[in-house]
C-alpha cells in the first residue's frame, strides 16, 4: 500500500512543481501576449486593410498596401526605401563603432585598479540611463553652429565653425557621436562581465608560452567572449535599426531629408496622415528585414 501511494504523491508533487514554474513564467507570458503578440497580430490585420484612422469603414484590400510600397511610381515607395536607406546608413556607421569602442573601453577599464574601475564604469554607464530627449537637448546645445560649446572652442583655436547638424557628413557624425555617448555604457558593461569570465589560467598558460598582449587578446580573449560578442552585435544592430529619437529631435531629418530615417517616416504616416494600413505594412516589412539580418549574423 505504502509503495502504491508514493508514486501518486510524487506525480502530484511534480505536477505541483510544474504548476509553480508556470506561475513564475506567467507574468512574462501575459506581458508578452499583451504588448507583443496581440499587437503584432493586430498589426498584420491592419496592414491588410485600407486603414485610415478617421474613416468610418476600413475595407479589406489584401496585399495592396505591400504592393504600393513596392510600386516604384508611388510616393510610399520612395518614403520607404529612402527612409530604409538612411536607417541602413546609420546602422552601418554606428554598429561597428558601438561594438569596437564598447570592447575597447571594457579592456581599458579592466586593466586599471579596482576602485577607479568602479568609478569610471559608473561614469560611462550614466548616459545610458538618460532619456533620448535629454540626450538630444544636451547635444543640440553643444553642437549649435552659431552658439554651441564645441564651435566656441573651435573658433577660439582659430578654426572655422562647423555646421554640425545642418550639413553632411557632419549631421551623420553628430547623430552617431551622440548615440555612442548615450548607449555605449550598456555594451561596455556586458563586455566587462564577459572579460571577467575568461579563465585566468589561459592567460597564465599564454604568458608561459611567451604570447604578447596582442596575441593573448586575439587568441584567448576574443574566442572566449565570442558568444557575448555576437549578442552585443545583434542587440546593437536591432537598437540602431530602431533609431528615431536622435534624428527626430536633433536634425528633424535634415539637411533636406538626408537623415530622415525609416521610423520617422512610418510614425509620420501613421499618426500625422493617419494612414495606419500602409504604415503597419511598412513596420512589418522593417521587422522582417531586422529578423533576416539577425539570423544572418547568427
Amino acid at each position, binding site marked *: 500500500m505504502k509503495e502504491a501511494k508514493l508514486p501518486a504523491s510524487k506525480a502530484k508533487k511534480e505536477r505541483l512543481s510544474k504548476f509553480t514554474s508556470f506561475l513564475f513564467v506567467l507574468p512574462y507570458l501575459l506581458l508578452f501576449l499583451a504588448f507583443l503578440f496581440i499587437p503584432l497580430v493586430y498589426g498584420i490585420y491592419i496592414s491588410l486593410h485600407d486603414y485610415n*484612422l*478617421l*474613416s*468610418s469603414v476600413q475595407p479589406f484590400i489584401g496585399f495592396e498596401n505591400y504592393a504600393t510600397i513596392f510600386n516604384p511610381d508611388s510616393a510610399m515607395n520612395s518614403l520607404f526605401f529612402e527612409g530604409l536607406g538612411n536607417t541602413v546608413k546609420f546602422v552601418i556607421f554606428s554598429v561597428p563603432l558601438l561594438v569596437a569602442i564598447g570592447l575597447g573601453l571594457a579592456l581599458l577599464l579592466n586593466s586599471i585598479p*579596482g576602485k577607479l574601475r*568602479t568609478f569610471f*564604469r*559608473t561614469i560611462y*554607464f*550614466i548616459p*545610458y*540611463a*538618460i*532619456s533620448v*530627449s*535629454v540626450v538630444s537637448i544636451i547635444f*543640440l546645445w553643444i*553642437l*549649435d*553652429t*552659431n*552658439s554651441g560649446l564645441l564651435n566656441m572652442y573651435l573658433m577660439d583655436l582659430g578654426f572655422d*565653425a562647423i*555646421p*554640425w*547638424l*545642418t*550639413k553632411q557628413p557632419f549631421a551623420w557624425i553628430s547623430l552617431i557621436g551622440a548615440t555612442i555617448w548615450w548607449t555605449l555604457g550598456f555594451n561596455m*558593461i556586458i563586455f566587462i562581465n564577459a572579460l571577467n569570465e575568461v579563465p585566468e589560467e589561459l592567460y597564465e598558460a599564454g604568458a608561459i608560452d611567451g604570447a604578447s598582449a596582442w596575441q593573448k587578446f586575439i587568441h584567448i580573449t576574443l574566442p572566449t567572449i565570442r558568444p557575448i560578442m555576437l549578442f552585443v552585435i545583434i542587440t546593437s544592430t536591432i537598437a540602431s535599426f530602431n533609431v528615431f529619437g536622435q534624428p527626430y529631435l*536633433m*536634425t*528633424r531629418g*535634415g*539637411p*533636406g*531629408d538626408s537623415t530622415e530615417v525609416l521610423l520617422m517616416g512610418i510614425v*509620420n504616416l501613421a*499618426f*500625422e*496622415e*493617419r494612414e495606419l494600413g500602409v504604415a503597419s505594412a511598412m513596420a512589418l516589412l522593417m521587422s522582417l528585414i531586422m529578423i533576416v539580418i539577425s539570423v544572418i549574423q547568427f
Partner: protein
Amino acid sequence: MKKMNKRWSALAVTCSAVLLTACSGNSGVVEEGGGDSGGSGESSEITLWAPFSGPDGPFMKEIVDEYNESQDEYTVNFQIVPQTEYYRTVDLAVNGESNMPDVMVMHGDQMFTYAEKGIIRDLGDLMGDEISADEYHPNAIEGASVEEALYGVPLDIHPLLFYWNKDMFEAAGLDPEQPPTNREEFIEYAQALTNEDENQFGYVVPTLWPQEFIFPTIVFQNGGELYADGEVQFTSDAVVEALEFERSLIDEYAVSPSDVQQDGEVTMFLQGRSGMHMNGPWMMKQWEDSGLNYGVAPVPQLGTEQEGVYANSHNFVVPESVDEAKLDGITNFLGYVGDNALAWAESGQAPASKAVYESDEFQEVNAQSPEVAKQFDYVKFGPDVENWGQATSPLMEAVNEVLLGQKDAAEALEEAQ
C-alpha cells in the same frame, strides 16, 4: 568587490528608473477641475478637451472654473491632453468610437480634415442668441468655416509676430520703440544691428520650424499663394522670390549667420545676439522668463505687394457623435467664453471675440496681445486641403536646403512641386 559592483549597478538602475518616471510624468490625460461626477445629472456635465499643456493651460482653466462657479446648471470638465499627443488621442477616440469629449479645441488647419470625414459637427444650428458669428472677427469665422459652413466657434487667431531686442536697437543707434515696417527698413535695420566680429546679427534666418509660418507669410505678402486652382504653386514667381529673399539675408546682405540649426535662432535671440526675431505668440513666456528687453509688433511687410501674415487658430468644435441633450449646455458655455475670454489674452494670445479684443481691458492686458489683434484684418490661413501640413513637407525640405545654401531656390522648388 563583486558586491560593490552590484551595488553600483543597482544605483545606476535606480537612477535610470527615476529619470524614466520623471520624463514620462507628463503623459496621459490630466484632469483639471470640474468633474465632481455624480453630483449633477448626466446631461449637465460637459467634457472639454484641449491641447494646452504649456503655460497657456492655467488661463483656460481659469475661464472654465469661473464658468462653473457662475451658474449651477452645467459643469464643464476640462481635460488637458499633452500637445504632442493631442490629435493622436482624438483620432484614437474617434476610431474606437468611445470616450469622445463633448467639446474640444481644434486648430484651424486641422478642421477641414475632420469636417470632411464627418467627425465634427456643423454648428450652424447653434447660432442664435447666445452665440452668433458676428460676435467674432470675420477672419476668425472664415478660419472656422469649411466650405461656407461654420464648424467651429473661434477662440483665438495666432499669427506670426515680430519681436525685437530693444537694447540691441539702442546700441546700434536705432529707435528702440520703432520696429521696421517694410522690407527696406528691415534690411537697413538688420545691417545696422549686424556685427560679425562680435558674432551678432540683425536677424537669424531659421532653416526649419517656424518657417512653416514665416515662409507662407512672405509668399502672401508677395501676392502669391501656395495652393490655388486645386494644385500647389511652389514654382510661381511669388514663391520663388520669397525664398530668394530669405536666402539673400544670409549671403547677399549677410545679416544672418549661415547653417542655423533647429531652434538656433531662438537661442541667439535669447542670448542677445540676434536683433530681430519672428515667431508665434506662444513664445511670450519664454522671453518674459529670460528677462529680455524686447518689443513686439505686427510682422513688417517683407513681401513686395501687400500686407499679410500666416496664422493658425484655436476653435471650439463639437463631435458629430455628441449627445444632443448636451447642446444647450455647450452653447451656453461657448457663449460665456466669447464674452469672458480676457484671461486667455493673459497668455499672450488674442481672443477672436469682439467683446474681448475691442475692450479697453484688452489693450492693457499685456504688450503682446493687442499687437496680435492688429493683424486680424489681414491674416491668411492654410488652404482647405486634407493634411495640408503633410502636403507642404517637400516644400519645407526645399526651404531647408536652400537656406542652408545647399541648393538653388528655383531648382529646389521645381523638385518640390
